């Protein structure tokens, strides 16, 4: 078909996409050029590589295996609070990592709830630092994700299949053979690959719960090469290794992932007839309670230990909180300035290039981009003076893929539904943006902005590379308090961070939907 006229132009979006691509590819090139490949990997680097792969593999295996019974229970039970529980499964995405870590320490740490209970019974306390702590935290974050992905597989199973199974009176074993196993064969590889890829490049977990020669990931090794040795060549070499790892894992995840489902409607209840006997009910009840407690107990423990400390927080924590709010606000503005024109460009039919630039951020980890930016900035300016702007920018780039997934479908709807009317009324350019595009996307903009603000607020990544002792965002300040063994103060600050990031998400998301109507 001949190219139709459109009320707005795709060029700002194409420009934004070029900026993002240049930034990411430029930093990667800087890393590649600086990497001292001739030096090769030392023994500790190989150990870091082994540990990175081991922990990611274990985290993915546990997350996925545990998610299977939880998703099954959610798929076939209806109970009060079910949709709340499903919404809760989405929460870890915007939960600051350091908050979850402090919660997990309060439950599973040496002085945590479980260790105390074990102490009463005369057992040794648990040890959370090291491999099992890293895996535990990764399962905490990714079990919900895996559960949602598998639940989606259940939801996409046609209702006719359940009816058919009910007619032949299929028991648990035939249900497994007829429906669940085929569905899992389709869903699990993609789920596993996604979790594996996420765990390969999660930095904050390894920073707080790992460390030492036996529990250092590549990302942590980059950080250490940077902060402790200021060895940019080695940091760049490790970044290149990390880039290969995430690139390969991301490629596998994309390959293994099935078509992207809408993700909506997960709380729809399927009519099911199987699993009605008592043992199946008890089995499902057990898994639902176990999953809910695993997700909620750490947060409860954090609130119990942190709330009393909230009024006693030092001035440095409040300063850090102000800094974090500022960084998150700037990051959200940058995010929207990139994502809105890009979503318009995709809606106008410029799919391939713009979308690819949008997901580049998923391939490169923030620490790798941070290393590259540092190498680029170092010769011309003081990178430490730019810690906050760099953090805001990198956070925005990292949130961009998610913002685009939220904005693009609606943007396409608006262009398809109202482009013609706008054009016939000569609403071209800014009038269409102001009167149609932005108001029609308000709810999605609010959601994307909330996500971006919460992710930026809780981020403990690139800031650790750039910050000098004078500057801290709230997550970094919490990490420093932990390092100084001020766990009480750290918990109090973590409660503040939790309130701020959830509050930012809530206000922006609500604001977008306030008085919104169709």
């Amino acid at each position, binding site marked *: *078909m*001949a190219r*139709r*006229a459109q009320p707005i132009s795709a060029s700002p979006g194409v420009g934004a996409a070029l900026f993002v691509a240049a930034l990411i590819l430029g930093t990667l090139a800087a890393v590649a050029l600086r990497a001292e490949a001739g030096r090769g990997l030392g023994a500790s680097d190989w150990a870091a590589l082994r540990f990175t792969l081991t922990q990611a593999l274990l985290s993915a295996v546990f997350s996925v295996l545990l998610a299977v019974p939880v998703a099954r229970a959610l798929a076939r039970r209806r109970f009060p609070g079910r949709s709340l529980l499903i919404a809760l499964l989405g929460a870890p995405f915007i939960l600051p990592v350091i908050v979850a870590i402090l919660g997990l320490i309060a439950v599973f740490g040496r002085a945590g709830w479980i260790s105390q209970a074990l102490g009463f019974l005369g057992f040794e306390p648990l040890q959370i630092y090291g491999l099992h702590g890293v895996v535990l935290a990764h399962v905490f974050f990714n079990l919900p994700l895996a559960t949602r992905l598998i639940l989606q597989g259940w939801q996409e199973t046609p209702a006719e299949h359940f009816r058919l199974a009910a007619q032949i009176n299929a028991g648990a074993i035939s249900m497994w053979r007829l429906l669940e196993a085929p569905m899992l064969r389709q869903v699990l590889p993609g789920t596993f690959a996604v979790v594996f890829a996420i765990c390969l490049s999660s930095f904050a977990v390894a920073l707080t719960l790992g460390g030492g020669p036996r529990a250092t990931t590549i990302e942590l090794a980059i950080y250490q090469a940077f902060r402790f040795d200021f060895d940019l060549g080695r940091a760049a070499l490790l970044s290149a290794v990390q880039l290969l790892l995430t690139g390969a894992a991301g490629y596998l995840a994309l390959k293994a992932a099935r078509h992207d489902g809408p993700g909506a409607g997960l709380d729809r209840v399927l009519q099911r007839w199987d699993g009605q006997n008592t043992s199946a009910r008890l089995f499902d009840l057990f898994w639902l309670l176990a999953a809910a407690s695993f997700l909620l107990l750490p947060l409860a423990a954090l609130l119990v230990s942190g709330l009393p400390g909230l009024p006693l927080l030092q001035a440095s924590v409040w300063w850090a909180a102000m800094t974090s709010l500022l960084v998150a606000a700037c990051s959200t503005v940058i995010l929207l300035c990139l994502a809105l024109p890009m979503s318009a460009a995709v809606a106008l039919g410029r799919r391939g290039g713009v979308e690819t630039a949008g997901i580049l951020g998923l391939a490169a980890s923030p620490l790798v981009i941070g290393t590259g930016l540092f190498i680029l900035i170092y010769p011309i300016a003081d990178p430490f003076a730019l810690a906050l702007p760099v953090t805001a920018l990198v956070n925005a780039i990292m949130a961009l893929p998610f913002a685009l997934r939220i904005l693009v479908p609606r943007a396409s709807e608006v262009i398809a*539904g*109202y482009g*013609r*009317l706008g*054009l*016939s*009324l*000569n*609403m*071209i350019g*800014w*009038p*269409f943006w*102001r*009167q*149609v595009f932005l*108001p*029609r996307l308000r709810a999605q903009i609010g959601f994307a902005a909330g996500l971006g603000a919460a992710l930026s607020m809780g981020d403990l990544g690139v800031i650790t590379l750039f910050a000098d002792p004078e500057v801290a965002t709230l997550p970094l300040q919490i990490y420093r308090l932990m390092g100084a063994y001020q766990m009480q103060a750290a918990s109090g600050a973590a409660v503040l961070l939790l309130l701020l990031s959830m509050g930012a998400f809530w206000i922006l998301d609500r604001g977008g939907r306030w008085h*919104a*109507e*169709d």
Partner: protein
Amino acid sequence: MLKIEAGLIDNGDFTISADFSLGAGDKAAIIGPSGAGKSTLIQALSGFLPLRQGRILWKGADLTPLLPGDRPTATLFQDGNLFPHLTAGQNAGLGLQPDLRLSKAQEERVGEALKRVGLEGLEDRKPSELSGGQQSRVALARVLLQRKEILLLDEPFAALGPALKADMLDLVSEIVTDTGATLLMVSHDPQDARRIADQGILVAEGRVHDPMPCAALLDNPPPSLKAYLG
């Protein structure tokens, strides 16, 4: 005079050829079997579908290169004629000022236009707070304010009941008579066509036929139209 010279319209699935002229101020019904290309013709005239060949002339001026908003046409589509997040007054006001920065005098004109279509005092209602018939009236108020010389209707009233649809067509008829605009409307219903159109344009067999008196076309339809009318 509205004229298409040696036009070929390509909507992606099929092409139709058009070579006809219609007098200024005429009211024409576009009639033909489903899928023959009636909407395609409207889209070409309003500028949403470029011509593959030929050109469109209005009073001797070439419209072919103009964007929809720059053409002397106002178009009402089957649906999506109003922005749901804007009030009735704003939706109508878009006919005066695409950026909605209306002067006091312009706002008064919006009020008059709404009054003219029977919506006095409903300026601040959103489309969702209006009935289907009232929504159509808002769109017609905007058409009034646009003051375009050609009005194109692609069955905007198809979702309304028969009585309401007749009301709307009468209102359209009054508006085009008052303003002297030229009307082209897609019609599925011979009754509608007879109601307001004096000319009939048959679209069938990949071709836009020459206009002829509407009554004559319907009373004595060619075979392709006869099969459709039954």
